[in-house]
């Protein structure tokens, strides 16, 4: 994978990200870099602040301090802090949610088509008069949404309501929807939660495929097997602080990580 990386400049650079909720510091000066085509995993025990980290990144929370710098390929560096969630998505950061947040009463295809919203521009007038441009745009949306569903493997359920999909398919549909926004970085919040081993293996393949298309992926996950097999780089946090960082092997043997996950060894205490 490293051969494909064109340059060493990170696509997303997070500097000193800090988030306070009243007196509680949920994130404490976190630094993280993601390069193109890299899969970075964010792990840590429950309550470590992983989802808060995602919410700060995507604009749902406004971080108290720090800088989020996005450099999409061929574009100037942009600061993401303080942007509204929809603007962040427009800049090229798409996410999925830990507890699935699909649009349950819309069809599978429509769910993916929603992802195209920020890349299209049809207005009220165009919608009413259906001028050539709007019709063309609408055709493109459907075609692109369909091709994404093809990649994800949901084409046989295109007109099904999202709420009627089995659990694993719902998770994959969330990824499809995020892909439709044409992100440079995909943020996956526990994509394998609640999946059986077979579904997890499929997900592993899917994420690798997405990475091979040139996207960078930031992943929160508890399934260590998946994390170890996928990630190029692992970032471990606990109580809002970074406790370790490095390749899967480094992290696996890091005493601080073992301590955070399993507690302290009695003999060393």
């Amino acid at each position, binding site marked *: 994978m490293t051969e494909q990386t064109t340059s060493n400049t990170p696509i997303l650079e997070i500097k000193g990200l800090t988030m306070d909720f009243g007196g509680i510091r949920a994130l404490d000066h976190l630094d993280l870099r993601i390069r193109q085509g890299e899969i970075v995993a964010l792990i840590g025990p429950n309550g470590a602040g992983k989802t808060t980290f995602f919410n700060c990144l995507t604009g749902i929370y406004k971080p108290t301090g720090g800088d989020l710098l996005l450099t999409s390929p061929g574009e100037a560096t942009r600061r993401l802090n303080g942007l*509204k969630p929809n603007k962040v998505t427009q800049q090229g950061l798409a996410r999925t949610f830990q507890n699935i947040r699909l649009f349950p009463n819309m069809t599978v295809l429509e769910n993916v088509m929603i992802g195209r919203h920020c890349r299209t521009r049809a*207005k009220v007038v165009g919608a009413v008069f259906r001028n050539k441009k709007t019709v063309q745009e609408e055709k493109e949306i*459907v075609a692109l949404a369909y091709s994404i569903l093809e990649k994800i493997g949901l084409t046989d359920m*295109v007109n099904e309501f999202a709420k*009627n999909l089995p659990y694993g398919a719902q998770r994959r549909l969330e990824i499809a929807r995020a892909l439709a926004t044409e992100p440079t970085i995909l943020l996956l919040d526990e994509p394998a939660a609640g999946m059986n081993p077979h579904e997890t293996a499929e997900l592993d393949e899917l994420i690798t495929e997405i990475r091979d298309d040139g996207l960078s992926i930031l992943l929160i996950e508890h399934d260590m097997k998946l994390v170890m097999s996928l990630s190029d780089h692992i970032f471990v946090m606990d109580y809002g602080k970074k406790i370790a960082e490095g390749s899967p092997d480094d992290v696996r043997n890091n005493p601080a990580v073992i301590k955070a996950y399993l507690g302290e060894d009695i003999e060393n205490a």
Partner: protein
Amino acid sequence: MITFKDLKNACLVAGWFIFLTFPIMVIKVNPFERSFGFRWQNMIYIAGGSFICYLASRFFLANKAAKQKKQKLLSIQDKPKIDWQQRLLSEPRLYLPVLGVILAILLIFPQVLSTYQINIMITALMYVVLGLGLNIVVGVAGLLDLGYVAFYAVGAYSYALLHLHFGLGFWTALPIGGVLAASFGIMLGFPVLRLRGDYLAIVTLGFGEIIRLILENWNDFSHGPSGISNIPRPGFFGIDMTLNQSISYLYYLMIGMVIFTIFVVNRLQNSRIGRAWFALREDEIACQAMGIDKTRTKLTAFSLGAFWAGMVGVIFAAKTTFVNPASFTFLESAIILCIVVLGGMGSIIGVIIAAIILMLLPEYLRAFSDYRMLVFGATLVIMMVFRPQGIISTVRRTYTLEKKPENVQ
């Protein structure tokens, strides 16, 4: 289906109702003769009625639960049974003739019916447009708006005042009324952007009342409770018309308006903006995370919803030739909301049917007018228990892609 336990409960319910209604239904006090009597037969009616109603509701609820269980067992791979509604709506070959017949009947109406009946039909059609307008806000975008009548009032008063002060005619006032109402929609939209659910409902309710109270109390501006009269009916290239003719004319105008509304609303719902509205209703956070501007989407929903109310308001002023604040009470908002909820949130055909039923039934069942509110309330309760999705549930557009799209990226 009905078990012994149900019978026992029904007896208990009957007993409880006897106890509750005893003071009002059984005891009869005559204050003039300073005496009181008992109406025992009322007690029997109440006991019997509540007993039967309880058993019936148990029976139907059990039926419904059994049906749902059966449907859950059908897995997703089995093609679900397509009901006649969806089949009728999905094939142009089937619904076009039906539409044609309905349109023909509607066009013949003024020739056969009396002016009184046509007037009722005009009102019903007005509520169809109002329902379709509110449907954008409540049904599609999921923003509970209890002050919709305010926009209706804005439309009506804009025609009345523009005519009074500047002598503007109906056809000029119609778009102006719509646009004014739409801008009021944006005015209401801005402060309520952060609110959801109950809080939004309360603020919109307040907004509706504010508009009505302004119209009632600002005498210099709106002529207060006495209203504005002598508003001209819509003209037709300056031709003089008799009362009957102008009412038939208004009727045809309303038919055109309804068709126009259906056309626009349908196209909006199946567009990029319509999808954003649906997404907003389904999940606000996910909707933003998918790159949809929440502010703009909400404001377009409010303003495009209000637009129709404004236009109908102008037509209302022209129809009655008189406006006063009493026409724009909260009850109107509630009725329009009932139309949307009964018809089915987001369903155009459902809203049309509900509007016609809710407007025509009270008119033609005048014999039972004493019980109108009772029947109205009971219908709502029964509908919400047995068919919460409304008369016709939303049909989402389906896409068929026979050939593979070429431009796969």
